[in-house]
Protein backbone atom coordinates (compact mmCIF):
# COMPACT_ATOMS: atom_id res chain seq x y z
CA UNK A 1 0.00 0.00 0.00
CA UNK A 2 1.70 3.13 -1.19
CA UNK A 3 -0.91 5.80 -1.18
CA UNK A 4 -4.46 6.87 -1.72
CA UNK A 5 -4.65 5.05 -5.04
CA UNK A 6 -4.82 1.65 -3.38
CA UNK A 7 -6.66 2.81 -0.32
CA UNK A 8 -9.84 1.12 -1.47
CA UNK A 9 -8.12 -2.20 -0.87
CA UNK A 10 -7.12 -1.49 2.72
CA UNK A 11 -6.54 -4.86 4.38
CA UNK A 12 -9.07 -6.71 6.46
CA UNK A 13 -8.42 -6.24 10.11
CA UNK A 14 -8.89 -8.87 12.77
CA UNK A 15 -8.83 -7.54 16.28
CA UNK A 16 -7.93 -9.63 19.30
CA UNK A 17 -8.18 -8.22 22.82
CA UNK A 18 -5.67 -9.36 25.44
CA UNK A 19 -6.91 -8.65 28.96
CA UNK A 20 -5.27 -9.28 32.30
CA UNK A 21 -4.13 -7.64 35.50
CA UNK A 22 -1.03 -5.52 35.88
CA UNK A 23 2.04 -7.69 35.51
CA UNK A 24 0.10 -10.63 34.09
CA UNK A 25 2.31 -10.53 31.00
CA UNK A 26 0.17 -8.75 28.40
CA UNK A 27 2.98 -6.66 26.96
CA UNK A 28 5.24 -9.70 26.97
CA UNK A 29 2.63 -11.79 25.16
CA UNK A 30 1.96 -9.19 22.47
CA UNK A 31 5.68 -8.61 21.91
CA UNK A 32 6.22 -12.35 21.47
CA UNK A 33 4.31 -12.13 18.19
CA UNK A 34 4.91 -8.58 17.02
CA UNK A 35 6.43 -5.21 17.69
CA UNK A 36 4.57 -3.41 20.46
CA UNK A 37 3.37 0.14 20.33
CA UNK A 38 1.92 1.97 23.29
CA UNK A 39 -1.25 3.94 23.10
CA UNK A 40 -2.20 6.50 25.72
CA UNK A 41 -5.83 6.71 26.51
CA UNK A 42 -7.10 9.74 28.31
CA UNK A 43 -9.59 7.64 30.21
CA UNK A 44 -6.82 5.70 31.78
CA UNK A 45 -4.95 8.87 32.50
CA UNK A 46 -7.86 10.37 34.37
CA UNK A 47 -8.21 7.30 36.53
CA UNK A 48 -4.47 6.96 37.02
CA UNK A 49 -4.51 8.88 40.26
CA UNK A 50 -7.73 7.50 41.69
CA UNK A 51 -6.58 4.19 43.03
CA UNK A 52 -3.40 2.51 44.08
CA UNK A 53 -3.09 -0.96 42.70
CA UNK A 54 -2.56 -3.75 45.08
CA UNK A 55 0.88 -4.89 44.03
CA UNK A 56 1.03 -7.81 46.41
CA UNK A 57 2.58 -10.78 44.67
CA UNK A 58 4.13 -8.77 41.88
CA UNK A 59 6.75 -6.88 43.87
CA UNK A 60 9.29 -7.74 41.16
CA UNK A 61 7.54 -5.33 38.89
CA UNK A 62 8.30 -1.79 39.98
CA UNK A 63 6.63 0.10 37.19
CA UNK A 64 3.37 -0.53 35.46
CA UNK A 65 1.90 1.22 32.51
CA UNK A 66 -1.75 1.95 32.16
CA UNK A 67 -1.28 2.65 28.50
CA UNK A 68 -2.88 0.19 26.11
CA UNK A 69 -0.38 -1.66 24.06
CA UNK A 70 -0.99 -3.11 20.70
CA UNK A 71 0.79 -5.18 18.12
CA UNK A 72 0.23 -5.64 14.42
CA UNK A 73 0.76 -8.96 12.65
CA UNK A 74 0.56 -8.95 8.87
CA UNK A 75 -0.63 -12.41 7.86
CA UNK A 76 -0.72 -11.59 4.18
CA UNK A 77 -1.20 -8.42 2.11
CA UNK A 78 -4.95 -8.52 2.73
CA UNK A 79 -5.13 -9.68 6.33
CA UNK A 80 -3.77 -7.93 9.38
CA UNK A 81 -4.26 -9.01 12.99
CA UNK A 82 -4.18 -6.41 15.74
CA UNK A 83 -3.63 -7.44 19.34
CA UNK A 84 -4.79 -4.86 21.89
CA UNK A 85 -3.80 -5.29 25.51
CA UNK A 86 -5.96 -3.87 28.25
CA UNK A 87 -5.96 -4.03 32.04
CA UNK A 88 -8.57 -6.43 33.31
CA UNK A 89 -9.90 -4.49 36.27
CA UNK A 90 -13.36 -2.98 36.23
CA UNK A 91 -12.08 0.56 36.38
CA UNK A 92 -10.80 0.12 32.82
CA UNK A 93 -14.12 -1.17 31.54
CA UNK A 94 -14.77 2.00 29.54
CA UNK A 95 -12.05 0.78 27.17
CA UNK A 96 -13.36 -2.75 26.89
CA UNK A 97 -16.56 -1.79 25.09
CA UNK A 98 -14.65 -0.14 22.29
CA UNK A 99 -12.02 -2.86 22.15
CA UNK A 100 -14.50 -5.72 21.81
CA UNK A 101 -16.51 -3.90 19.14
CA UNK A 102 -15.99 -6.02 16.04
CA UNK A 103 -13.26 -8.03 17.77
CA UNK A 104 -12.67 -11.62 16.72
CA UNK A 105 -12.32 -12.57 20.36
CA UNK A 106 -10.23 -12.17 23.45
CA UNK A 107 -7.46 -13.75 25.47
CA UNK A 108 -7.78 -13.48 29.24
CA UNK A 109 -4.24 -13.68 30.55
CA UNK A 110 -4.36 -15.07 34.06
CA UNK A 111 -1.65 -14.71 36.67
CA UNK A 112 -2.22 -17.45 39.22
CA UNK A 113 -0.97 -15.15 41.99
CA UNK A 114 -3.82 -12.76 41.30
CA UNK A 115 -6.65 -14.65 39.68
CA UNK A 116 -9.22 -12.19 40.99
CA UNK A 117 -7.82 -9.63 38.53
CA UNK A 118 -9.63 -11.56 35.78
CA UNK A 119 -13.11 -11.77 37.27
CA UNK A 120 -14.45 -8.45 35.99
CA UNK A 121 -13.26 -8.84 32.44
CA UNK A 122 -14.48 -12.45 32.26
CA UNK A 123 -17.93 -11.27 33.39
CA UNK A 124 -17.81 -8.59 30.73
CA UNK A 125 -16.82 -10.95 27.91
CA UNK A 126 -19.49 -13.44 28.96
CA UNK A 127 -22.18 -10.77 29.07
CA UNK A 128 -21.15 -9.42 25.64
CA UNK A 129 -20.79 -12.92 24.20
CA UNK A 130 -17.21 -12.22 23.20
CA UNK A 131 -15.47 -15.52 22.46
CA UNK A 132 -12.47 -15.85 24.77
CA UNK A 133 -9.82 -18.27 25.93
CA UNK A 134 -8.10 -18.19 29.30
CA UNK A 135 -4.31 -18.38 29.05
CA UNK A 136 -2.57 -19.04 32.35
CA UNK A 137 0.84 -17.38 32.24
CA UNK A 138 3.27 -19.77 33.87
CA UNK A 139 5.70 -17.69 35.85
CA UNK A 140 8.74 -19.54 37.14
CA UNK A 141 7.99 -22.16 39.72
CA UNK A 142 4.29 -22.17 39.00
CA UNK A 143 4.20 -24.86 36.38
CA UNK A 144 2.51 -27.09 38.89
CA UNK A 145 -0.76 -25.29 38.21
CA UNK A 146 -3.23 -27.28 36.27
CA UNK A 147 -5.45 -25.60 33.73
CA UNK A 148 -8.46 -27.37 35.21
CA UNK A 149 -7.78 -25.90 38.67
CA UNK A 150 -7.76 -22.44 37.14
CA UNK A 151 -10.99 -23.20 35.29
CA UNK A 152 -12.65 -24.08 38.57
CA UNK A 153 -11.21 -21.05 40.37
CA UNK A 154 -12.37 -18.70 37.64
CA UNK A 155 -15.67 -20.52 37.21
CA UNK A 156 -15.60 -20.45 33.42
CA UNK A 157 -17.89 -22.69 31.42
CA UNK A 158 -16.67 -25.86 29.74
CA UNK A 159 -16.59 -24.61 26.13
CA UNK A 160 -14.11 -21.90 27.14
CA UNK A 161 -10.59 -23.20 26.52
CA UNK A 162 -8.23 -22.83 29.48
CA UNK A 163 -4.58 -23.44 28.69
CA UNK A 164 -1.19 -22.88 30.24
CA UNK A 165 1.21 -20.61 28.38
CA UNK A 166 4.53 -18.85 28.60
CA UNK A 167 3.98 -15.28 27.46
CA UNK A 168 7.67 -14.95 26.57
CA UNK A 169 7.60 -17.85 24.16
CA UNK A 170 6.47 -17.21 20.61
CA UNK A 171 5.36 -20.78 19.96
CA UNK A 172 3.38 -20.82 23.18
CA UNK A 173 1.66 -17.52 22.37
CA UNK A 174 0.90 -18.73 18.85
CA UNK A 175 -0.81 -21.72 20.41
CA UNK A 176 -2.99 -19.39 22.48
CA UNK A 177 -4.02 -17.40 19.40
CA UNK A 178 -4.65 -20.61 17.45
CA UNK A 179 -6.83 -21.86 20.30
CA UNK A 180 -8.88 -18.65 20.13
CA UNK A 181 -9.32 -18.75 16.36
CA UNK A 182 -10.30 -22.43 16.56
CA UNK A 183 -12.89 -21.55 19.21
CA UNK A 184 -14.31 -18.82 16.97
CA UNK A 185 -14.35 -21.28 14.08
CA UNK A 186 -16.25 -23.85 16.18
CA UNK A 187 -18.76 -21.19 17.16
CA UNK A 188 -19.12 -20.11 13.53
CA UNK A 189 -19.73 -23.69 12.37
CA UNK A 190 -22.22 -24.41 15.13
CA UNK A 191 -24.11 -21.30 14.08
CA UNK A 192 -23.66 -19.63 17.47
Amino acid at each position, binding site marked *: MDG*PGVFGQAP*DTLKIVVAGGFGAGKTTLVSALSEV*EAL*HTEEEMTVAGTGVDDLKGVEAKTTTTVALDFGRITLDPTTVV*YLFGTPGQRRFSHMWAELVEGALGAVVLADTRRLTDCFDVIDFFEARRVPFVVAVNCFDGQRSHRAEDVRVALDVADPVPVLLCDARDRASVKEVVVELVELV*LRLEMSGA
Partner: protein
Amino acid sequence: MIPDRAEGPDLIRPYALTGGRTRPSRSDLTLTTSVVAVAEVVEDDPEAREIHALCGRPVTVAEVASRSGLPLGVVRVLLADLVDRGNVLAHTPDRERDRPDEATLRAVLARIKEL
Protein backbone atom coordinates in the same frame (compact mmCIF):
# COMPACT_ATOMS: atom_id res chain seq x y z
CA MET B 1 6.61 12.46 18.06
CA ILE B 2 5.16 15.39 19.90
CA PRO B 3 7.26 15.48 23.05
CA ASP B 4 5.83 15.10 26.50
CA ARG B 5 2.23 15.87 25.73
CA ALA B 6 0.88 12.58 26.95
CA GLU B 7 3.00 12.47 30.06
CA GLY B 8 1.42 12.77 33.44
CA PRO B 9 -2.17 12.69 34.52
CA ASP B 10 -2.97 16.26 33.51
CA LEU B 11 -5.50 16.21 30.71
CA ILE B 12 -6.34 19.81 30.60
CA ARG B 13 -3.49 20.71 28.28
CA PRO B 14 -4.12 17.98 25.69
CA TYR B 15 -7.76 18.95 25.42
CA ALA B 16 -6.73 22.56 24.96
CA LEU B 17 -5.51 21.32 21.57
CA THR B 18 -9.07 20.48 20.62
CA GLY B 19 -10.59 23.71 21.84
CA GLY B 20 -11.87 21.85 24.87
CA ARG B 21 -13.81 19.32 22.80
CA THR B 22 -13.65 15.79 24.12
CA ARG B 23 -15.87 14.22 21.45
CA PRO B 24 -14.97 13.94 17.77
CA SER B 25 -17.31 15.40 15.17
CA ARG B 26 -17.81 11.90 13.75
CA SER B 27 -18.07 8.54 15.41
CA ASP B 28 -16.68 6.32 12.65
CA LEU B 29 -13.04 6.51 13.72
CA THR B 30 -12.42 3.21 15.48
CA LEU B 31 -9.00 2.05 16.68
CA THR B 32 -8.51 0.01 13.52
CA THR B 33 -9.95 2.52 11.06
CA SER B 34 -7.37 3.22 8.35
CA VAL B 35 -6.64 6.87 7.65
CA VAL B 36 -4.57 8.45 4.90
CA ALA B 37 -3.71 12.04 4.03
CA VAL B 38 -5.15 13.15 0.73
CA ALA B 39 -4.94 16.95 0.63
CA GLU B 40 -2.53 19.45 2.13
CA VAL B 41 -3.43 21.07 5.41
CA VAL B 42 -3.74 24.81 5.02
CA GLU B 43 -4.48 25.67 8.65
CA ASP B 44 -1.59 26.88 10.70
CA ASP B 45 -2.27 24.36 13.44
CA PRO B 46 0.83 22.38 14.44
CA GLU B 47 -1.09 19.44 15.93
CA ALA B 48 -3.32 19.10 12.87
CA ARG B 49 -0.22 19.23 10.70
CA GLU B 50 1.56 16.65 12.81
CA ILE B 51 -1.42 14.28 12.71
CA HIS B 52 -1.77 14.86 8.99
CA ALA B 53 1.94 14.11 8.46
CA LEU B 54 1.54 10.82 10.34
CA CYS B 55 -1.09 9.82 7.77
CA GLY B 56 1.33 10.05 4.86
CA ARG B 57 0.64 6.40 4.13
CA PRO B 58 -2.42 4.41 5.24
CA VAL B 59 -2.19 3.77 8.98
CA THR B 60 -4.69 2.95 11.68
CA VAL B 61 -6.07 5.42 14.18
CA ALA B 62 -4.29 3.41 16.89
CA GLU B 63 -0.95 3.91 15.15
CA VAL B 64 -1.53 7.64 14.68
CA ALA B 65 -2.34 8.00 18.38
CA SER B 66 0.67 5.95 19.39
CA ARG B 67 3.13 7.81 17.18
CA SER B 68 1.82 11.28 18.01
CA GLY B 69 2.17 10.63 21.74
CA LEU B 70 -1.19 12.36 22.19
CA PRO B 71 -4.04 10.67 24.03
CA LEU B 72 -6.39 8.68 21.83
CA GLY B 73 -9.39 10.92 22.51
CA VAL B 74 -7.50 14.03 21.44
CA VAL B 75 -6.24 12.34 18.28
CA ARG B 76 -9.77 11.28 17.41
CA VAL B 77 -11.06 14.83 17.67
CA LEU B 78 -8.21 16.21 15.54
CA LEU B 79 -8.49 13.40 12.97
CA ALA B 80 -12.24 13.84 12.68
CA ASP B 81 -11.67 17.53 11.88
CA LEU B 82 -9.16 16.58 9.18
CA VAL B 83 -11.61 14.07 7.69
CA ASP B 84 -14.41 16.66 7.76
CA ARG B 85 -12.19 19.17 5.98
CA GLY B 86 -11.21 16.66 3.32
CA ASN B 87 -7.55 16.50 4.33
CA VAL B 88 -7.71 12.86 5.40
CA LEU B 89 -9.70 9.87 4.10
CA ALA B 90 -10.95 7.26 6.57
CA HIS B 91 -11.81 3.64 5.86
CA THR B 92 -13.27 1.40 8.53
CA PRO B 93 -12.62 -2.26 7.72
CA ASP B 94 -15.55 -4.57 7.12
CA ARG B 95 -14.36 -6.82 9.91
CA GLU B 96 -15.56 -4.18 12.33
CA ARG B 97 -19.08 -5.02 11.25
CA ASP B 98 -19.06 -8.60 10.01
CA ARG B 99 -17.64 -11.65 11.68
CA PRO B 100 -15.18 -13.39 9.40
CA ASP B 101 -16.63 -16.42 7.63
CA GLU B 102 -15.41 -19.99 7.93
CA ALA B 103 -13.09 -19.79 4.92
CA THR B 104 -11.44 -16.64 6.25
CA LEU B 105 -11.01 -18.17 9.70
CA ARG B 106 -9.39 -21.28 8.22
CA ALA B 107 -7.04 -19.13 6.15
CA VAL B 108 -6.16 -17.06 9.22
CA LEU B 109 -5.48 -20.22 11.23
CA ALA B 110 -3.16 -21.57 8.56
CA ARG B 111 -1.28 -18.27 8.41
CA ILE B 112 -0.89 -18.00 12.17
CA LYS B 113 0.52 -21.52 12.34
CA GLU B 114 3.09 -20.53 9.71
CA LEU B 115 4.27 -17.47 11.66
